[in-house]
Every structure is written in structure tokens, then in C-alpha cells.
């Protein structure tokens, strides 16, 4: 099988997974109590008004037809209108993504900036004091809930020292500086558990690769300890780190829901959560699907990155 064909097969597999996932979401939301038309019109609405609205929304069509039209809408960008806001769901999601996407990217960037040096530092000399400190950071970072880190940051850096806003988001129109400073604390809260996990993985990978023959050869050829570490060990240790980055995506998304809630950021997590409490199920349905798409697409990308980071996978398989 040619590599191209293999990739296409894999992509087709992921597409199938997405279809099954979307159907699952659809069925669960279908089964949920509460008729959208009744919710939109309130309890005092006349029966025939409700029926008319149901027909208008297309709710009287058979379930499979509605599922197909939803999936069709996903591809054309027409996701329907929110039951509570009346605005198109697509617009609502796009608005909120303008907060969540920068937040999660910022947090991932911070997590990599913390964990890569720390993990390499720890793994280069296992058992040393630096290794001990990194391990302690990793153990605590994994155990501490990110929303609590958020609360502590608010307590000490916003209320205590007044360095950052305690929550809310001014919007990107108010200037980059203001928007970024509103995202700094949430990004730190989101980044610390990620950084802890990545530190552990980086450390383990560096220790493992350091025992490989090619590292010993590089050292035997006269390469200094640090050059061998950064030129040979670290690049080869990145594979498990990238895998872990991909595996962490679901946690990053869950974390974003919580952290957005702590800092009252108008992101996608807050949208999902509010939509649930207002029983705006069409929004819930689409947001959950979007999260699932992100998780699955990121996994596809991580699969592809393997081939780039590890040339052995390209030639042999």
C-alpha cells in the first residue's frame, strides 16, 4: 500500500468516526426532554402556534431526515438558529471561538515554554536536585485543578497586587494590550497542568533517548555534553511529547470550559455551559460536535506529525 493511500484510508476512518460521533450526539439531544418550539414560545403558547413553529423549524420531519439536514448544514455552515438568542448558531460559535482559540493556543505555548526546558533539564541528569524539583513540580501540577489555580491567581495577582483584571474580556476591538492582559491569568491557569504532564513525558523521553547508540556515538566523536543533548537527544525525544500534546487536547478543552467560567470569559466553554442551563439544545448539540471534531482532527494531525518527526516511520511502513 502506498503511503498516500494509507493516509487516505486513515482519514476515511476518522471521517467514519466523526459520523458515528455526530449521530450519537444527535440521538442524545433528541432524547433530551423539552420541545424546542415550546421552549421558544414559553409555557402559555397555544398548541397550534407551537405546531406551526415546529413545522417552521422542520421539527416535524422524521428523525433521520433531520439528522441528514443537520450534517448537511455542518458542511455548508448553516447550523440553524439559537433557540434563546435567535442568532445563527454558526455566528455565535465563531464569536466565542475568537476568545477560546487564542486562550488555548496561548496556554499550549506557555506549557511548552515551561515543560520543554524543565523536562530536558531534569532528564539530562536523572537523580540530581534539578530532576527532583522538576518531578515535584510535575506531581503537584498534575494534581492541582486548573480552576483552583485560576482562583488563586485572582486572589493574589488581581485582588492582591492588582496587576491583572480579575475576569471578563474587553473584546479584541479594545486594543491588543487589553485583550491579551485579560487572557494572561486564564492562560497560566490552563497551562500549568498541561506543563506538568508534558514535563514528565519530556523527562522520560530524554532519559530513554540518552541511552541510544547514536547519542553515545556522537559523544565518542567528541561532541560536548550539551551539544549532544540538544542536537541529538532532544530532537529524537520529541515524538512522545507531540503524542502527549495530542492526547491532552480533550483535557485542554475541558480545562477551557472551567477556566473560562472562573474568569467569566465569553468563550465557547461558557457558551456550551450557558446553553445547557437555558436548554438551548441546538447550541449544545453543535458546540459538542465542534469539540469532537477538534479532538479527532488534532489526532489526525498528530498522526501526520509522526511521519515528519520520525523518518523511520516513513520508510519502513
Amino acid at each position, binding site marked *: 500500500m502506498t503511503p498516500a493511500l494509507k493516509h487516505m484510508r486513515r482519514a476515511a476512518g476518522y471521517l467514519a*468516526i466523526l459520523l458515528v460521533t455526530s449521530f450519537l450526539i444527535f440521538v442524545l*439531544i433528541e432524547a433530551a426532554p423539552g420541545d424546542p418550539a415550546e421552549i421558544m414560545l414559553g409555557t402559555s403558547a397555544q398548541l397550534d402556534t407551537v405546531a406551526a413553529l415546529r413545522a417552521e423549524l422542520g421539527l416535524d420531519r422524521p428523525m433521520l431526515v433531520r439528522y441528514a439536514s443537520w450534517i448537511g448544514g455542518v458542511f455548508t455552515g448553516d447550523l440553524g438558529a439559537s433557540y434563546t438568542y435567535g442568532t445563527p448558531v454558526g455566528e455565535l460559535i465563531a464569536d466565542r471561538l475568537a476568545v477560546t482559540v487564542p486562550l488555548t493556543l496561548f496556554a499550549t505555548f506557555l506549557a511548552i515554554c515551561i515543560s520543554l526546558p524543565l523536562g530536558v533539564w531534569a532528564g539530562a541528569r536523572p537523580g540530581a536536585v534539578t530532576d527532583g524539583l522538576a518531578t515535584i513540580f510535575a506531581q503537584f501540577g498534575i494534581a*492541582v485543578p486548573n480552576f483552583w489555580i485560576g482562583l488563586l491567581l485572582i486572589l493574589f495577582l488581581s485582588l492582591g497586587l492588582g496587576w491583572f483584571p480579575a475576569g471578563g474580556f474587553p473584546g479584541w476591538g479594545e486594543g491588543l494590550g487589553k485583550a491579551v492582559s485579560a487572557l494572561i491569568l486564564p492562560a497560566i491557569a490552563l497551562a500549568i497542568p498541561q506543563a506538568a504532564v508534558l514535563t514528565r513525558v519530556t523527562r522520560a523521553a530524554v532519559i530513554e533517548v540518552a541511552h541510544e547508540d547514536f547519542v553515545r556515538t556522537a559523544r565518542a566523536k567528541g561532541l560536548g555534553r550539551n551539544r549532544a543533548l540538544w542536537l541529538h537527544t532532544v530532537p529524537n525525544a520529541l515524538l512522545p511529547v507531540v503524542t502527549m500534546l495530542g492526547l491532552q487536547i480533550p483535557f485542554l478543552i475541558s480545562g477551557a470550559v472551567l477556566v473560562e467560567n472562573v474568569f467569566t470569559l465569553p468563550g465557547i466553554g461558557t457558551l456550551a455551559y450557558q446553553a445547557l442551563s437555558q436548554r438551548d439544545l441546538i447550541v449544545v448539540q453543535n458546540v459538542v460536535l465542534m469539540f469532537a471534531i477538534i479532538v479527532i482532527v488534532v489526532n489526525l494531525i498528530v498522526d501526520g506529525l509522526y511521519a515528519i518527526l520520525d523518518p523511520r516511520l516513513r520508510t519502513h511502513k
Partner: protein
Amino acid sequence: MKRIPLNLWLGGLISFLLVGSAILSRFWTPEDPIKMNILNRLKGPGDAGLLGADQIGRDVFSMIMAGGWTSLGIAVTATIVGGSIGTLIGVTAAAKSGAFEKVSGWVNSVLFAFPPILSAILLGALLGPGGLTSIIAIGVFMIPVFTRISRGAAMQIWSRDYIKAAKMSGKGQALITVEHILPNISAQLLVQFAIQTGLGILAEAGLSFLGMGIAPPTPSWGRMLADAQTYIGTAPHLVLAPGIAIALAVLGLNLLGDGLRDLSDPRRKQAS
């Protein structure tokens, strides 16, 4: 006599205290954790009980103890349910391979796309918030983890000579799985159980922080933090205790899991 690793020692101690105080809270707490005492409203540690009182004067220390029972109960139940289902799928996939293995791989990929909070948002629409929603949401998330671990471990055992001997003596796949595979992978499952219970506690705290967990007035660490946020300016002590409780519980279970792993497989300790 093998030396007990530090992480096992420390993890075991913290976990013991966690489980102990959770069980104790069923019989005794310093104050009734759900009893209001408005005179103690927002009083600091020492002025009212060991850790102070909350916005309606409930004793924080007693709430932490009772909250431990909630957290642990939901996390352990979810891990047992999700872990059993996952392990069943995993060992079956290892025994049967072929189509079943493929399908279970697909199911895992689908489940993997649903972290607990997302499942809870979906399930919340269907069942409403509550303990059951939390258990299902967290349990679903445990399934793919245990499937992967048990399948990998079981496949290793299946390639051993004594399994070949058992096959030749006419034992079926199911009997071999029960008699040989499960006992041999139980150590790895136990390690994972400790670590996943820790993750379950984190997830439960997150859900109850969002108001999607167990219903009030049953104390839970996550909701204590949600309430504390409202009074963060006037009563900062309320933010500390529940967070420390969650972090300690998860830390203890993680250390316990790591320690058990080091004990059962010393080679891994050197490698990782």
C-alpha cells in the same frame, strides 16, 4: 525485604487519610456539615471551627470531610464501572483480535472525543445534573483508558509459552482469560485504578464547580470552590481549603499508583 519506595509510602499515607476521613465523615464530623449557623457567617479559621465557616455559617472542616466522601464515592464508582467495561473490552480484543479488535478501536476513538465535562454537558441535557450524570460522564471517559491498558497487557501475556500450553491442553479463550490473563494483568490494572480515581476526583470537582455535579446540600469540594469565588474578596480562606483537599487527594492517589508500579515492575522505574 524490599525497601518501600518513598512515593508508595507517602501516597499510601495520604490515600489512607483520604479514605479514612471520608468514611469517618459518615459517622462523625466536628459539626453537622449541612447545618447553617448564620452567626458564624464567613468567620475565619479559628474563630469558627478549624477552617472557618462559609457564607451561611456551615463548618468548613466538616464540609471538607463530607465532601471527601462525595468526591471519592463518585470517582471510585465511576472508575470501577468504566474500568470494568474497559477491561472487558480490552481483554476480549486481545483474545479475539480480528473484527472485534477493530470495532473496539473505533468505539474507543469515539469515546476519546468526549472528555468528562463534554459528556456531562450532553448528559446534563438528557438527565439533568446530579450524581448519576457525574458517574456516567466520568465512567465513559475511563472506558478507553482501561481498554488500551488491559489490551496491551493482555496481548503480552497471550504470547507467553504457558498460554500456548494452556491452549494445547484444550482450554478456551474465555477460560484462559479468566485463569491466566486477568490475574497476570491485575497489578497493572490496580496501578491504573489508583491513578484514574485521582483523575475522577479532579473531574468530579470540575463538574460540581460548574454546578453539574451532585445536588446541594450534599457537600462537594467543587461547589465549595464555586461558592468561595463569590466571597473571594471578603473571605479568601474559603478558597484555600477545598483546593488543597482536591490537590492532596489527587497527589496521594497518583503517588500511590506510581509507587505500586515501581514496586511491581522495578525496570520501569529506571526507564521513566
